[in-house]
């Protein structure tokens, strides 16, 4: 299933670090997100964009996770040559991931 169907996301930035939330629409789906949307999956998905570590924080009370992606913004928001220097559009790329339905 495409992540977009069960979760939403917002991207934020600080320096060369991108912060992507991933929030289940329905808390019942949260265990699936925690099971399948791993650090390894996210790191592989963004292999051509994110060159540093990926850290995942889990917030089961909110049915959400927070991904912190190092070296993700072309050397830093304020000097990046990227069209989307803030990496605001990365949230949509995250939601394009597919995970198993169960």
């Amino acid at each position: 299933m495409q992540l977009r169907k069960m979760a939403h996301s917002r991207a934020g930035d600080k320096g060369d670090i991108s912060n992507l939330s991933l929030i289940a629409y329905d808390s019942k789906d949260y265990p699936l997100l925690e099971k399948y949307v791993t650090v390894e999956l996210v790191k592989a998905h963004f292999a051509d964009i994110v060159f540093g570590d990926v850290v995942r924080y889990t917030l089961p009370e909110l049915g959400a996770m927070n991904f912190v992606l190092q070296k993700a913004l072309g050397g830093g928001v304020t000097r990046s040559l990227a069209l989307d220097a803030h990496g605001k559009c990365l949230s949509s790329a995250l939601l394009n991931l597919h995970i198993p339905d169960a």
Partner: protein
Amino acid sequence: MKNIRIGAGAGYSGDRIEPAIELAEKGDIDYLIFECLAERTIALAQQAKMKDPSLGYDPLLADRMHAVLRICSEKGIKIITNMGAANPQGAAAKIKEIAVSLGLVNLKIAAISGDDVLSVLQQGNYIDDSGQPVMALGDKLLSANAYLGAQPLVDALAQGADVIVTGRVADPALVLAPLIHAFGWAMDDWHRLGQGTLVGHLLECAGQITGGYFADPGYKDVADLARLGFPIGEVSEDGSVVITKVAGSGGQVTAATCKEQLLYEIHDPAAYLTPDVVADFSAVTVSEVGIDRVAIQGATGHPKTGMLKVSVGYIDSYVGEGQMSYAGPGALARATLACDIVAERLKIADVKVGEIRYDLIGVNAIHGASLSPTDTEPYEVRIRVTGRTDSLKEAIRIGNEVETLYTCGPAGGGGATKAAKDVVAVRSTLLPEALVTASIHYEEI
């Protein structure tokens, strides 16, 4: 003790102005906050101040104050903003001038300075987040501003300030300060400071919690974004908050909009670092308690680190850019050829470029080749060539080589644009808070 109602009138420097008027007129608020200072803004403001010492504050300060000063003065709503940027005292003088022109009386405006720590950095050996000594930036160094905490704002409120204008302060401090003032929280009540910091974090981006930056048609529909209402935080003495907005305004306040903003840019939810507290949002709960009313609680905090983050602004490099569009049959092939030609031209003309990008807008410019599907032929493509140079003169030549595609490139290219600029970038370092002294200057009428 009554709840305190805080409205967020702007989430960034260029934000809409009408929602703040709506909050002041109909929000029944005690405080109106304007957060307008992005990471690099203060370095740009410092450049503006160097050219004209009366400037260096937010360019929309006058417009925003003309819009809300009278109504806030009449209703006793206090205004707190970081629109002072590189010149809080200049901003306070401008606000006084506007107040006088509006015929207002009994207004006390506080300008909070002390965040400019360039001279402090010059006296020590500080390493920035690139691993280099800050002072190695030499004459490229533009500005250094520490993130101040809530204390000077609390002091100004205690002195009866009606308007507070600051330079660099931690964004949540704009909201935390009035809570400390109103409820008499101690500056080492880490639990409540953690709660108040959460309220500040939720409100600081204004419309981003009321349905702005949220809509995704068919998945997340939001009504009336053209009339988006900005948020109100209804805060209790224990720091718990209900987020709401003016009835009848556009947008929505739901558990989902609040969760997106809660996690926005916080990195480790258990350790959100501010000058006042290490806030811990890891056990926060969110529940809908009415239409457009969401209760949020469960934050806590731990002792502050005693170190202040400092943003160091500097001239990093120069960037040149050119764009050109191709459309119709074969657009992608002609755009690709255009990029190849520009790459060869830059070599032939010996333009000294460091990092360079050849983007195909509409194809792979945003997420790169590996995440962008290649199975459909786009109807139109816009090329974007952008590169980093050591001088403005070299940067200008990049856009020129794109523009000459008009007469020397593939068929049917149109809409060329070019630009070149110096890049003011930001690094960060840490400074012991004892080395930073805030000061307050008052203007009164």
